[in-house]
């Protein structure tokens, strides 16, 4: 299944996510995180996209995983945060 979301992060930027997911297992096949936000270092978003593959589409699991990736890769977001990213991903589900 494929889904897309457009989500204005509260006090932040416009996030647009393209998600390819397995409806049966409720997990991510592939994700493209786009938008006019800032992330430092920029390359960290590609690492996140790769590490999010096969992650279950569950709010708590996603939020924990995103938070741990932010910590591990020393990512600083401006105009985006873990909660916003989680919300954007879940909004892709039909």
């Amino acid at each position, binding site marked *: 299944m494929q889904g897309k979301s457009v989500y204005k992060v509260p006090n932040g*930027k416009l996030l647009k996510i393209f998600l390819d997911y397995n409806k049966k297992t409720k997990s991510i096949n592939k994700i*493209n995180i786009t*938008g006019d936000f800032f992330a430092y270092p*920029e390359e960290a978003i590609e690492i996140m996209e790769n590490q999010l593959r096969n992650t279950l589409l569950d709010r708590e699991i996603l939020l924990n995983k995103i938070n741990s990736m932010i910590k591990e890769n020393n990512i600083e977001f*401006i105009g985006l945060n873990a909660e916003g990213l989680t919300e954007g991903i879940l909004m892709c589900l039909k």
Partner: protein
Amino acid sequence: MKEKWRLLKTEDKTAFTNMAIDRAVLVTNSEGKVPPTVRFYTWKPPAISIGYFQSLEEEVDLAVCKELGVDFVRRITGGGAVFHDKELTYSIVISESHPQIPRNILESYGRICGAVMNGLKNLGIESKYVPINDIVTNGKKISGNAQTRKIKTVLQHGTVLLDVDVEKMFSLLKVPDEKIRDKLISDVKERVTSIRHLLGKNISFDNVAEAMKKGFEEEFNVKLTPGKLTEEEIILTKKFEKECFGSRDWNYKK
């Protein structure tokens, strides 16, 4: 004695060259080969730049770009899509550890935007910095800015609108819903302004560049000395233009 920084003025370069020069200077400055550098530039032909994380086909109407002879390029900085036409674009490249640059990213945006605000003030325009990355005057945006930090070096570039054609801008950018295109255009017209609109007359690139030069000198208490790209920077610019900014792989990567 005031610290000397390098000033570059490069008019009428393509989008690919402009983005390649900023990246080339980022590399040479990170290696200590050139001083902190401020550049003022324009774009020929006019171009759309998109933020590093944006999807090209989602944001830009490529058919209209082709029709109107407008180039497009992905930046190495985040942020949104910008139509570069009648504007002065600036960039500053400086070590992350330079005492004039706050460690905190948002604070450093504010500091560099302070230089642009001084420049506007030198033209008789009062403005203020609105986080994350805008400069506004009378509540209307006149400048957008974007920063990256790589190899322990800060690159911030941004626009100062000399004039603005919102209709043309929106013919080049995709809108989320065609039904609200007119409403969007009228909203943006209310929220964006330009030097020409504010002063009621045309001001040349050179005059704005001079005001901005003083603005940067005042903000950072330095002297900006006119200079040129080094041989190495020219070679790096060509390399980045070919391998990165002019390539389909880069521009369509998202």
